């Protein structure tokens, strides 16, 4: 890239920053690195600019490279929640795409600074991951690449089985026990709703005695955290370090997963607004603006077999803005059935933008969709649910459901817990012999058989003693208990009675 281009990019950066601030976006200092495509593909695959080595990142790199070389490359944007906020631009992209990406990134920056779900994430993850990469390399030299790889395999298998609310109640086992005993040393902070919180009954003697021995004192979804602290293997310090790095990275990426639709919708909404201004102010030529429009259409393209978060998030934000401008919300509006009245509804409220800023601060995907996905948006976007019907040599993909209520209901459900099955460790000393007992909170969908077995093998590698996983599986119209057990000789399944 030539120096003049870099200068024009810097001009664009300054202009975009001014326009974004004028719109009311609040962001951390922003930095852009212009990098070759190969480096960009690497960052996308490794999830962080410099990260530890693992074959799965190598695989993802080849997947990204394949997509890139076949030209499904949407204008790439990679942005990290760090302070200053770091983002990347591909050196070969044409100027209008760079501008699109930069405007988009400023909105992400604002989102990450202001969404409450990002508030507790570590903003030093970039440097911390680079340091971890160094340490892992040393471990590979000291303990062998295979041992390190096997450990990372196992850690990554349960990386998403973390406690999404961990930052809200940092606590150790002793304090959990105290709470369960009813001995809370610190009283909960006094708030306006304290009087409606249920009073916890004091534990009886029996309960206390049982509690003293129970580990974990109450079921925990934090599989990696519990294993790091309690594995009877026992884990060496370097192994705990590797697993902790994996856990911290998953924790860091969790808010991205929880707010994918919102975050991308927000950024798309604002890059359109900002680029429009750039064009009006004649910073972009008509030809460049045309180019932008072309790429912007690709950003918001329909996917027949997956939901495009840019498209859906943008459409919902637009709809929210319109409805809060016209006052189209609340019981009075909801209960109006007359199509014409609804069509002409306008209270002159004009609070669209205000509402947008409020929503981006508080919501995450599943309740964003639950609260704001309307019949109009579902119908505008022609959202549907598809199913695959089995044929002798292929699956036929068929549009199954277009009814807005049903589509929305299933979508919201699939967004909860980011689509990860909820698995809790209920006993770390099962049968009084340090076996691990886990329970799957069955919510209508069974575990994927092959994946469950292989994952259990990997977890067993971390725990070493036998491990168990209690779940359910559907049989005709009912479900029945299913218990997986993994030990050094393999994985077994026992099935219980119907219910």
């Amino acid at each position, binding site marked *: 890239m030539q120096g003049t281009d870099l200068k024009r990019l810097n001009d664009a950066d300054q202009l975009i920053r001014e326009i974004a601030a004028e719109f009311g976006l609040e962001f951390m200092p922003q930095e852009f690195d212009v990098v070759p495509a190969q480096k960009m593909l690497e960052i996308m695959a490794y999830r962080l600019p410099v990260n530890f080595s693992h074959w799965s990142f*190598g695989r993802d790199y080849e997947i990204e490279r*394949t997509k890139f070389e076949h030209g499904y490359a949407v204008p790439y944007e990679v942005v990290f929640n760090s302070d200053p906020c770091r983002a990347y631009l591909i050196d070969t992209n044409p100027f209008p795409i760079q501008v699109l990406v930069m405007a988009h990134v400023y909105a992400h920056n604002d989102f990450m600074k202001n969404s409450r779900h990002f508030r507790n994430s570590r903003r030093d993850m970039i440097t911390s991951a680079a340091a971890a990469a160094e340490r892992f390399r040393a471990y590979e030299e000291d303990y062998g690449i295979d041992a390190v790889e096997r450990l990372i395999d196992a850690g990554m298998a349960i990386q998403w089985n973390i406690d999404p609310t961990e930052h809200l109640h940092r606590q150790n086992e002793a304090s959990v026990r105290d709470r369960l005993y009813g001995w809370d040393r610190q009283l909960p902070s006094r708030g306006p709703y304290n009087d409606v919180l249920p009073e916890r009954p004091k534990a009886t003697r029996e309960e206390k005695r049982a509690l003293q021995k129970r580990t974990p004192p109450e079921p925990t979804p934090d599989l990696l955290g519990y294993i790091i602290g309690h594995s009877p293997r026992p884990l060496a310090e370097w192994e705990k370090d590797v697993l902790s790095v994996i856990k911290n990275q998953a924790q860091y990426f969790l808010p991205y997963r929880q707010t994918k639709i919102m975050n991308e919708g927000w950024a798309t909404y604002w890059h359109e607004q900002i680029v429009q201004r750039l064009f009006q102010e004649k910073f972009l030529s008509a030809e460049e603006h045309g180019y932008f429009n072309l790429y912007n259409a690709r950003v918001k393209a329909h996917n027949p077999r997956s939901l495009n978060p840019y498209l859906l998030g943008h459409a919902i934000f637009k709809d929210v803005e319109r409805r809060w401008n016209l006052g189209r919300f609340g019981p009075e509006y909801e209960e109006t059935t007359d199509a014409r009245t609804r069509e002409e509804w306008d209270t002159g409220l004009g609070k669209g933008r205000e509402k947008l800023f409020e929503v981006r601060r508080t919501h995450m995907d599943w309740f964003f969709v639950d609260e704001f996905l309307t019949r109009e948006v579902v119908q505008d976007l022609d959202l549907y649910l598809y199913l695959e019907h089995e044929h002798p040599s292929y699956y*036929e993909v068929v549009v199954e459901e277009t009814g807005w209520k049903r589509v929305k209901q299933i979508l919201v459900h699939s967004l909860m817990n980011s689509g990860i099955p909820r698995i809790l460790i209920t006993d770390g000393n099962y049968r009084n012999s340090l076996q691990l007992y886990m329970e799957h909170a069955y919510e209508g969908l069974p575990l994927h058989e092959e994946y469950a077995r292989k994952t259990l093998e990997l977890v067993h590698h971390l725990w070493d003693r036998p491990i168990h996983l209690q779940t359910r599986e559907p049989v005709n119209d009912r479900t029945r208990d299913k218990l997986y057990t993994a030990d050094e000789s393999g994985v077994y399944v026992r099935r219980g009675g119907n219910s």
Partner: protein
Amino acid sequence: MAVVQPDYSSAPRGKTDAARHRHKVKEAIRQNLPDIVGDEAIITRKENQIVKVPIKGVKSYQFIHGRTGGEGGGFGSGESQRGKVIGRRPKQGQSQGGKPGGEPGTDYLETEIDIEEIIEMMLDDLGLPNLRRKQVRETVIPKGWTFDSVERTGIRPRLDKKRSIKEAIRRTETLVAVLMDQTGRSEQDCRRALAATQGDSTAALRLLESGTVLPPVSDEPEYLLESDDLRFRTITEDVEYQSNAVILAMMDVSGSMGTMKKYFARSFYFWMLSFLKTIYRKVEIRFISHTTEAKLVNEHEFFHKGESGGTKCASAYELTAELIDTEYSTSHWNVYPFHFSDGEDWDPYRTVEATKAVLGRQPAALGYGEIQTEYSASVLMKALEEGLGLGAVQDNGFLHYEGKYNETPILGVVLRSRDDLYPALRTFLKPDRGDLP
């Protein structure tokens, strides 16, 4: 400035970890061999030995939801018509690319792989069938040259300098000792005398006896090379003996052999040749193309020239028989006649007779591949099946024909699609290694 272009010249990490993944995915590539073997891009590739093959990545396991009724699903947008079919997804094992949904980590990716590596993977599966050690004459394979012995005469390029210098040193030291013994002068004087007389021992003796004081020559002892000192090496050719094998590749190039059929036949021979050239140091291959008449052609013509006209397969077998008689006597050679056609034959009975004539000469094995399409009028496989008493064998879902004529195994395959290429290769090139050293 907030927009900067840092230097990212550090070693690319993606590639090294990709290699690690590729190592893991080897097994997957092996399972994909049938797909890869059928891939046109490989056969039509230019010089480049590296090809890109689509594979499925190794899965990253984690707890995920399964399906209730074995059917997957998801969300999409842009369609409002209920019941509309929006696509198909091939089942596993029958995939030809495309992106299966449902499970994570099953994205297709293209990985670069060396043809050699692919052939390496075939190695475990394939080899020449019924390869016998022929007693009378084995092919002599030159492995280069080795030095054999050292002689006093020879040509200059083969002068062994080290040996020659050694001889000179040995001779000079002996002379010095003899002179010291005879004259009683010091070692130094004797050396100087020898140097002064250019190594002439009689003159040196005379000089020493005359009692002349000799001028110092040099501190280092001096050695003079004489023609007696020169040593030369002789060389002989290094050879290895290996069983003779010749492939007589016959192919129908008549008008009825459409592009697709020729592609099958060529693919098959391409892989067979690449493969044989890799594992056997010396395999002779002769190319016979035929319409109603057969002729010997070179490799390029064989693969690139098409002709029109009718088909008499017998002509190819007759030419093969002739070649065996004149050049590749089966007492010296393992002869492998292979034939590909679409099964159209104006005179199948004559072909059966001609085939029997070839079999009567006891080749190592005989293979026939018939490329059938919906519309081809294939008669030859049927005729051979009846005429030679072949039996149908089902192996891993691939149907082929097997039989024996005297001691010669006969193999017949029917190719209907690209997916049949690899099984066909496996059928033809099923080694029985028992007889091999």
